[in-house]
């Protein structure tokens, strides 16, 4: 697990792989990843066509620096994996994960395909999406089933709501238990938890940039790093919302400086005031958080640079071609 670089997943667009113009235009949106969908957005009669498009689409979505992800069909797992696991793919999203044996089976197939197709062993991640009550009940076994699962969350959303027979937008959080179970599982097994703090949403809008930013910002302040969406409008707000601000960076430096002073005093904590006059505690937990924030910010900057360079390269090449 530790051998593979951490991939950022602040923003990502999910799109039907059969809609050529979506796939062809997605590269310049600035997504951390692009999720090529073989599942719900592809009509049953086009599943074969869709499968044949994955291999050629990977470099298309990659060219602006986005990582390529493919969401496969729960019931067509083997055929879909065979179509999707090619060099350049970062992750397979597996919907409605319910049992550990499903994940073990996926791991076996991916391991074989990696070997046959010249992909570094263990490189391909599995995104195990928990969308049913059975999946929640078996969360611990599911995450334990493969080291390819490097982040874990879910247990809310449309499929979950259908399984429980609860409506989506009711003004209270219907999914507290399931979200808690999957997050505790992620934390207990040491994979990155991803969760969405509850923000009442009565409309179900998927394209409102302000809302996307507010949600990403709230999630980041809670310590979460993973986003994704359906509409190009939300990409930039998510990248921004999941990236620490300059003020936060300055504050983190201040915390670390205070902690250095504290360490010399023999105390384990002090209460003090920050630059804005707010009472603050300084201790090893605050210091660790500040440290992590600076590391995360550096990763975000590096990732943003990577993407903008890739996009510039493509643009330059296109101009050159003209």
């Amino acid at each position, binding site marked *: 697990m530790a051998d593979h670089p951490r991939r950022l997943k602040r923003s990502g667009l999910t799109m039907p792989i059969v809609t050529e113009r979506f796939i062809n235009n997605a590269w310049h949106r600035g997504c951390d990843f692009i999720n090529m969908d073989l599942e719900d957005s592809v009509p049953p009669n086009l599943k074969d066509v869709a499968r044949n498009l994955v291999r050629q689409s990977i470099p298309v979505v990659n060219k602006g620096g986005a990582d390529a992800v493919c969401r496969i069909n729960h019931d067509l797992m083997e055929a879909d994996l065979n179509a999707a696991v090619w060099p350049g793919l970062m992750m397979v999203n597996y919907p409605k994960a319910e049992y550990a044996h499903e994940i073990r089976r996926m791991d076996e197939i991916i391991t074989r395909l990696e070997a046959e197709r010249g992909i570094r062993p263990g490189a391909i991640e599995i995104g195990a999406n928990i969308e049913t009550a059975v999946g929640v009940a078996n969360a*611990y076994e599911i995450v334990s089933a493969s080291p390819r699962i490097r982040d874990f969350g879910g247990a809310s959303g449309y499929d979950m709501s259908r399984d429980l027979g609860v409506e989506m937008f009711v003004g209270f959080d219907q999914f*507290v*238990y399931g*979200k*808690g179970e999957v*997050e*505790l*599982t992620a*934390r*207990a097994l040491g994979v990155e938890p991803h*969760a969405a*703090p*509850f*923000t009442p949403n009565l409309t179900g809008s998927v394209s409102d940039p302000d809302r996307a930013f507010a949600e990403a910002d*709230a999630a980041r*302040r*809670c*310590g979460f790093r993973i986003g994704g969406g359906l509409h190009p409008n939300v990409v930039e707000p998510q990248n921004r919302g999941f990236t620490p601000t300059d003020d936060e960076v300055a504050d983190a430096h201040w915390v670390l400086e205070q902690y250095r002073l504290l360490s010399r005093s*023999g*105390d*384990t*904590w002090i*209460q003090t005031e920050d630059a804005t006059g707010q009472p603050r*505690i300084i*201790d090893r*937990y605050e210091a*660790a*958080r500040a440290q992590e924030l600076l590391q995360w910010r550096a990763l975000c900057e590096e990732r943003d640079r990577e993407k903008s360079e890739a996009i510039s390269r493509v643009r330059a090449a296109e101009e050159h071609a003209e």
Partner: protein
Amino acid sequence: MPANDKIRRSWLLVPMSRPERVLSAHQAGADVVILDLVEFVAEPDKPAAREVVAANLSAVKAGGAEVFVQIDPELMLADLRAAVWPGLNGVVVSRAESAEQIAQIDATISSLESERGLLPGSVEMVAGLETAPGNHNGYEIATASPRNWGLTLGRADLIMDLRPEPSGEIHLMQYLMQRLVTIAAAAGKTPLGASWRHPDRGLLATPANTLAAARRGRAIGFKGSFCVLDNQVAPLNEGFTPTGVEVAAARAVRQAYSDATESGTIAAVSHDGRILTADIARQYANVLALSDAIATREMFKTAAVEGRPVPVP
């Protein structure tokens, strides 16, 4: 309700490396004083801190408090050797993570008890489920030793790095707290904790916010909570005590219910516009029992402070 009636509402954590805090601890009015060897003692100060535990066990009980020592499972042997002496009521195991670990601690305590002339099994345990694995294994931990009296999330918000949501609730804490209450009650143990909100950071809250946290905590099933400041003790004692209004209501319910059951076979009687069933009557009976037990505990503490002969608790 777990089958124990010990009133332990306020648990004051005192850093063992702070002689002045240790000296004054008996004055705070806490039901329990926890002598800390883990969280508030800097690493280099730990050996000296361990040296002085035994000498202070009885001094901190001068106000009628019980005394626990908080130990670090990674330094279990040294911490337990420092703590298990006559007078000790129990240990708090910080960052408890597995049943095996609890069994080991239990065995070590047992041999120290027999070596040092303590009643076998007299040292109790409170397990701090502060990490994700600890919470995941909570039920196994709770049932791993008969010494276990209580469970707490301790500093889980800090150790698991849980941060405030826009609502002011600390992320995941409602879930973890109710899960802990469930596990504790299922295992016949006592759940300890308070429902802290942002901007209270961990255990560092004003007296007013401490009272609110205690009341919210009690509402979901907690029976007492840890704190780190002397001025948080009184709010915890108050917050985990039924209010006068509650007690009056409970008395009225008891009266109404006994009138009704005596007068006939009516399943439900009306009280304040509410339907009163046997289980609702039982909820209120719990309130009265708790209120009585607290009054007895307070009498004991007052007597201790005044140096009078103490009534048997």
